[in-house]
C-alpha cells in the first residue's frame, strides 16, 4: 500500500519551554485526532516527529496514523538550536524510511515536511549546506513556520518558498497552525504530475505568509 510520509520537525530549544511547547503538543494532539476522522488519512498517512535543540532526536519513526501514539516532548533549560543538524538527520532518515517505486514495490506518495522554529539556526553553515540536500530529496511541499517575534524568516526562505509566521506563541495560534497543517496533509497523496507540486490550501489569518 502507498503511504503518505509526513515529517514534522519541531524546535525544542529552551525558548520553547512552557506555554509554547505545551501549545504545540495540544495542537499536534488535535491534528492527530482530526486526521483519525479522515478515512483516507487513516489508511495512508504515516507520521514521524523529529525534535531539535542542542540535540536532534527522532522521537517517532515513520509510524502509520492508526498506530501513532504522541510522545511526551521535553525541552532543555537552554542551549542552541541545531536546525542544520535536524535537516541532516531528516535526509538520513528519508533515505532509509521512504519507499521509492520499483518494479517490485509500489512507491510511497511524495513526503510532506513541516518545520517549526522560534529562533534561528545556530549551525548556520551546516544549515545552508543541508537546505540544498533537503531539496535533492523530493517533498511535495515543505512548509516552514516561524513562531513568535524572535523567529527569523530569512534562513527558512533558503529551505522553501512556503514560509509562514505566527505572531504569537499562544495556544490559539498553534492550534490554527496545526489545523492548517491537517488540511495540508489531507490534501497530500493526490495524483500529481512528475514535475508539479501541489498547491497549498489558503492559510488561516493567524498564519501569515512571508513574501
Amino acid at each position: 500500500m502507498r503511504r503518505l510520509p509526513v515529517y514534522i520537525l519541531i524546535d525544542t530549544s529552551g525558548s520553547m519551554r512552557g506555554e509554547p511547547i505545551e501549545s504545540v503538543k495540544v495542537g499536534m494532539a488535535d491534528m492527530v485526532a482530526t486526521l483519525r476522522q479522515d478515512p483516507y488519512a487513516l489508511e495512508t498517512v504515516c507520521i514521524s516527529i523529529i525534535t531539535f535543540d542542542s540535540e536532534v532526536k527522532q522521537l517517532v519513526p515513520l509510524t502509520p496514523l492508526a498506530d501513532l501514539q504522541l510522545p511526551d516532548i521535553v525541552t532543555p533549560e537552554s542551549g542552541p538550536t541545531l536546525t542544520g543538524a535536524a535537516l541532516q538527520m531528516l535526509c538520513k532518515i528519508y533515505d532509509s524510511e521512504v519507499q521509492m517505486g520499483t518494479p517490485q514495490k509500489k512507491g510511497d506518495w511524495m513526503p510532506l515536511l513541516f518545520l517549526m522554529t522560534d529562533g534561528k539556526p545556530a549551525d548556520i553553515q551546516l544549515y545552508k549546506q543541508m537546505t540544498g540536500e533537503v531539496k535533492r530529496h523530493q517533498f511535495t511541499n515543505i512548509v516552514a513556520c516561524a513562531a513568535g517575534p524572535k523567529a527569523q524568516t530569512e534562513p527558512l526562505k533558503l529551505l522553501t518558498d512556503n514560509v509562514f509566521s505566527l505572531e504569537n506563541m499562544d495556544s490559539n495560534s498553534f492550534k490554527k497552525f496545526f489545523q492548517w497543517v491537517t488540511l495540508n496533509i489531507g490534501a497530500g497523496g493526490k495524483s500529481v504530475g512528475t514535475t508539479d507540486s501541489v498547491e497549498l490550501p489558503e492559510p488561516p489569518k493567524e498564519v501569515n505568509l512571508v513574501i
Partner: protein
Amino acid sequence: MNTEKFLELLANGKNDTDFEEFLKFVSDKLWNQYNKHLMDEILMTENKVNGIALNLPNASENKPYEQTIDFGDTKIAIERVDGLSAETHGLNVTVCDDKKSFKIAGTPDLNPIRNAGTEIESTFELTVFYKYEGLCLPPKKPLLERKLQLVINQDPRYLWKNIPVDWEKMSDPKYEKEDADCQYVTVKALPDGTPQKDIVAASKRGRSHAQEGKPRDDDFQLYHDEQTNWYVIAVADGAGSAKFSREGSRLACNVTVEVCKKALSNCEKFEENINLWHIDQKSEDAGKLVSTDIYNILGKAAHKAHTEINAEAAREKNRPKDYATTLLLAICKKFDFGWFIASFWVGDGAMCLYDKENHTSVLLGTPDEGEYGGQTRFLTMPEIFANPTDFFSRLKCRIVPDFTALFLMSDGVSDPKFETDVNLNSTEKWNALWDDLKDNGVELTDDNEAAKEQLLNWLDFWAPGNHDDRTIAILY
C-alpha cells in the same frame, strides 16, 4: 498502669464536661492530621503509579485486539477497570488473577455508539481502580485511580461520505459529469451463430472524490463500426490535482475515438497492409507500412486530442495542465487469420491482452510511473510529442489468433488489483482478475447487457488506501 489510672492522669483533675471537650479537641486535631497524612500518602502513591509507563497499543475497529497491561508493581491490587465494555465497544476488560495486570480483549465494534448518533472520538478513557499494599484508604476514597487512554481507530469504511457534487455552485466552466457511467456495446452473433466479441465499460467516482463532493475525473468511450467491424476503446484518467481534468479526460476519449472512427470507416489500404504484415511478420517493409498507418491513426488521434485540449484551455484562459489526463486507446478488428490490435498509451493504469486458454497476458505498452506514488505522464504534456522515438514507443500493435479479453483500466483499478509492474506482467494476476470479476457478479457472457451494471457494482470493491476514480473497459 490500668486504664482508670491513665484517664485520671490525662484528666488531671478537670471536671467531666471539660475533659470531654478536651478529648474531642485532641481527637479531631489528630484525625485531621492523620487524614492529611493519608491523603499525602495517597497522592504520592498515585503519582508514583501514574508514572509507570504502560504499553497500550492502539486498537482498530473490526480487528481483533488482545493486550495485557501489566503495572509491574508488586504492591498494586487492581479491583476493577471502568470505561470499556463488550456491549458498547466490543472489548472486554478483565483483571488478571495476580491483580497486578488486566487484559483487554475482543474485536472493537463502535456501531453501538455510532447508531446512537453520537460523534465518535477515537480516544477512550479507562479508569483503573486499585488498592496499594501498606496504604490504608479512608472511607471517602476507598480506591486509588489511574486514568489511561486507549485509541480505537474507526473502521475507515464508516468514515467515507458520499457527498454529491454541487454543480450549481461549481465555478465556470462547470464541465458537468455524472458520478458514474456504464455502457455495453452488443455485437450480435453472425448468421451462422458464431458469437462476436462485445465491449463493456464502467466508470465510477472514487471515494476520495465522493468524500469531498468532487466530480469524477475519469472517462471512457466505446465504438464499434457495424460496416467495417472495427472496435475502438478509449479510457482516460484525469489527474486528481488538475482542476479541469474531468474535461481533459472527456476530450481525450471523445476526440481520439472520433478520429479513429473516421479513419477506420474507410481504411482498405490499412487493412491490406495488415494482411501483408500478417503473411510475413518478419517483412520490414510490411512492418513499416503498418507502423506508419498506426502512427497516422492512433498517433494523430492522440495529437489531435492534445491540441483540442490546449485549444479548450486557451478558450477558457486556463493552463493546459489544468486539463491533465492519461490516455489508453486501442483499436482492433477480427480478420480471417485472427485479431489485429493496435494501441497508444500515455500515463499509468493498464492495457492488457489476456488469453486464458493459452495462459498469456501481454501488456500493450509500459505504464508511466515515477519513483513516487501518483507520478505519471499526461497527454497534456508537450514533451510526450517532442521525441519521435519516445512517441513511437507508445504505439504498439500485434496479431493474435484469438484472446479472452482486452482490458483497459485506469490506475484506480490497476493499483489495487496489481500494485506493482511485476504483477502487471504476471499472467497469474490477470487470471486472478478474470476470476475476481466472475466470482463477484460480473457475467462476461455473450450479449449480456446486464454486465454493464454488474461491472459498475464490482467497481465498489474495498482496498485500503485505494479510493481513486475507477474505470475499466473490457472487450471480450
